[in-house]
């Protein structure tokens, strides 16, 4: 019988899911940044990125008024009807009912962070109660954080059980599991945590990079490690899990690079907001700005675009 120590747990899981070489991942993703997206392809990419955006505000100073402004922007990012609404607004649980009042009945979903976001350092019963509260207020989607402490201590069963409990608490709402990659630190750990989460998720649920509250958020490299995990899990089980990079994606150019990674790793079936999202606030206006540039041939000043979240 092999040892059951936490350290051995890491080794066993690594053996099962395989390791990741940092230099190799970074070389792979560098190629995405050399792709040149022009004309029609660029417009398609920009529109698709808009439709995948989870327009986010997660601040202590959020008010119903701020949420209203965010929701209006989410429903109609630009006057131009060619630009689709965003995928969802992402808010704190206390703001869910305010958001629901505006976007309810539209295509735009309400996503709520929960489970003692961003640290996750609360009793499980508290975290689950928070999830149930958000769902009963009308959250279509819940963004949870995993227990990083338990993960790093090798208590994988606990991490998995907690995610499973949140899945149950979600009912019919979709779940996005935030791995908080900067606290997992290694690509090996990101891959391992992805598999732990996917093991208990339902088709249509997501894994997500970050809370946006730490120093390092979504990068092409950690996105790549996670979408390769999603691909391997899908080919192995037939269960299609979605992906949400969040935090740090501020420009249209970056978002197109992420989409190129999706196109070349997961394929066409993931180029939809049912399976891929951007967690972002300032990204949306840059997408709109690029869209207007493609349409008119000139860059508009930032103040031509209504400001839903962070300003320029």
């Amino acid at each position, binding site marked *: 019988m092999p040892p059951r120590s936490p350290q051995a747990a890491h080794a066993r899981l690594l053996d*099962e*899911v*395989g*390791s*990741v*070489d940092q*230099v*190799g*991942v970074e*070389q*792979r993703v560098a190629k995405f940044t*050399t*792709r*040149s*997206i*022009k*004309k*029609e*392809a*660029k417009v*398609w*990419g920009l529109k*698709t990125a808009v439709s995948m955006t989870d327009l986010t505000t997660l601040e202590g100073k959020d008010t119903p008024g701020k949420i209203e402004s965010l929701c209006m922007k989410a429903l109609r990012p630009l006057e131009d009807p060619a630009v689709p609404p965003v995928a969802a607004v992402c808010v704190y649980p206390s703001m869910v009912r305010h958001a629901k009042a505006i976007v309810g009945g539209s295509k735009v979903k309400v996503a709520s962070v929960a489970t003692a976001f961003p640290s996750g350092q609360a009793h499980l019963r508290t975290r689950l109660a928070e999830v149930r509260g958000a769902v009963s207020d009308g959250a279509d989607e819940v963004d949870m954080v995993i227990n990083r402490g338990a993960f790093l201590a090798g208590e994988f069963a606990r991490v998995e059980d907690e995610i499973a409990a949140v899945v149950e608490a979600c009912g019919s709402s979709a779940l996005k599991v935030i791995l908080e990659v900067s606290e997992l630190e290694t690509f090996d750990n990101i891959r391992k945590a992805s598999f732990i989460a996917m093991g208990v998720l339902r088709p249509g649920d997501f894994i997500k990079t970050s809370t946006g509250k730490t120093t390092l958020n979504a990068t092409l490299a950690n996105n790549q490690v996670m979408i*390769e995990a999603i*691909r*391997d899990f*899908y*080919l*192995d*089980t*037939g269960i*299609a899990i979605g992906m949400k990079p969040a935090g740090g994606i501020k420009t249209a150019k970056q978002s197109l690079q992420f*989409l190129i990674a999706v*196109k*070349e790793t*997961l*394929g*066409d*079936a993931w*180029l939809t907001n049912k399976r891929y999202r951007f967690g972002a606030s300032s990204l949306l206006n840059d997408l709109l700005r690029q869209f207007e540039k493609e349409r008119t041939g000139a860059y508009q000043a930032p103040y031509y675009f209504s400001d839903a979240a962070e300003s320029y």
Partner: protein
Amino acid sequence: MAAPRKSAGRPSPRLIFGDLWDFDPAPESADPKLKARYDLFIGGRFVRPRSGRTFDSINPGNERKLAEIALAGPADVNAAYAAAAKAFRPWAALPGRERGKYLFRIARLLQDRAREFAVAETLDGGKPIRESRDFDVPMAAAHFFYHAGWADKLEYVVPGASVSPLGVVGQVIPWNFPLLMLAWKLAPALAMGNCVVLKPAETTSITALKLAEILVDAGLPPGVVNFVTGAGETGAAVMGHPGAAKVAFTGSTAVGKAIMRQLAGTDRRMTMELGGKAANIVFDDAPIDQAVEGIVDGIFFNQGHVCCAGSRLLVQEGVADLVISKLRNRIRVLRVGDPMDKNTDLGAINSREQLATIRRLVAAGVREGASMYQPPCVLPEKGYYYPPTLFTGVTQSHRIAREEIFGPVLSILTFRTVDEAIEKANNTPYGLSAGVWTDKGSRILRMSTELKAGVVWANTFNRFDPSSPFGGYKESGFGREGGRQGLLDYASTA
């Protein structure tokens, strides 16, 4: 990760790499500033060939004529050697730091005109603009910079001994990295104080002759570098010329052997960088996705026109199915086509002849029973193109496992133990490079000792640096290029 499970009753999941998001053409638009006719570069000037003959340089991407190139006959080669001999004494007598200045100037001028050179390289040779822009041209500049740094430090190259230049060196380079191979050969020779007569490959002469413009702009003394263009006969004249103190050749093993026969019994020094059939070895503990990427870089870089290409993949049996299925998915998203498109991953095969060679060897692979996979891709109608190709079920006795194909064709073999991997990897007349993929450091060290190859890459492939010597074992040649070792191949030590 185990290989994909097949459960009963459920169709196995597949990835769709379709046309949902087709990229628009993204052609590089910089002007390559080509001349309609290129003369020989002898004694610091462009001169008409005494032979009176010319040949055409063709763009392999669309089969159109790019320029007319002078064909150097024996009299032209004589003139080039005479110019170099005349330039040698004053050049060698210059203080190293002065020679270094010229090299720095060449490197900077090349950087200034990087885009123009990248476009010219792609038009002339067929490689994707992404590679000539991001690899060939910057790396060529890096070699000039690196050796410029050596020029004033030559008294420290060999502790306790002094080094001196050899004289005039004859150099013949291949068509796969025209500008880069030229930089590899010119820079150390010049830093040490030698003069050069160089012949580019007949299908890719243009960037050498464009570099001649830079040499003029840099004020390099006339005759220090001379370019004679032409095909095999010109090359033989450059290699066999009695005025050469040393010859350096990069190309096929067959031609290398012919040169060695020609020069046997003379005191001519030689550096030979010849063919390869490198083993890229993947162990079951390797990071598989990165290994797959390394395999792709190893064989599809520059359409596989790379002497150190990882053309034999050796996979440990336990992960063979997984590696092959991932590799198939990976090459489905490689973009084959117009080399000038910034999104092209695989450009054009360099020449009609090379395309015929690839087709012949692939046909031999099929005939000998290996199973072939090519992803669906639409090739341009005009130009020389070949899709990325995988062969599975290959054994050591297949021709495609033994002969250098020099194209985008990978032969996949399996092994069970470390010893078997070493045995199979070394079971080839070549020994230029090898790759090892494993998480185990001690195994990397053992493999790098036991593999008979000049370069062994660990958990990566096809990485180059001017400070790292490059060269072969066995029939892949001898002598080194790059680093201190490469520099000393252009010096006599006393």
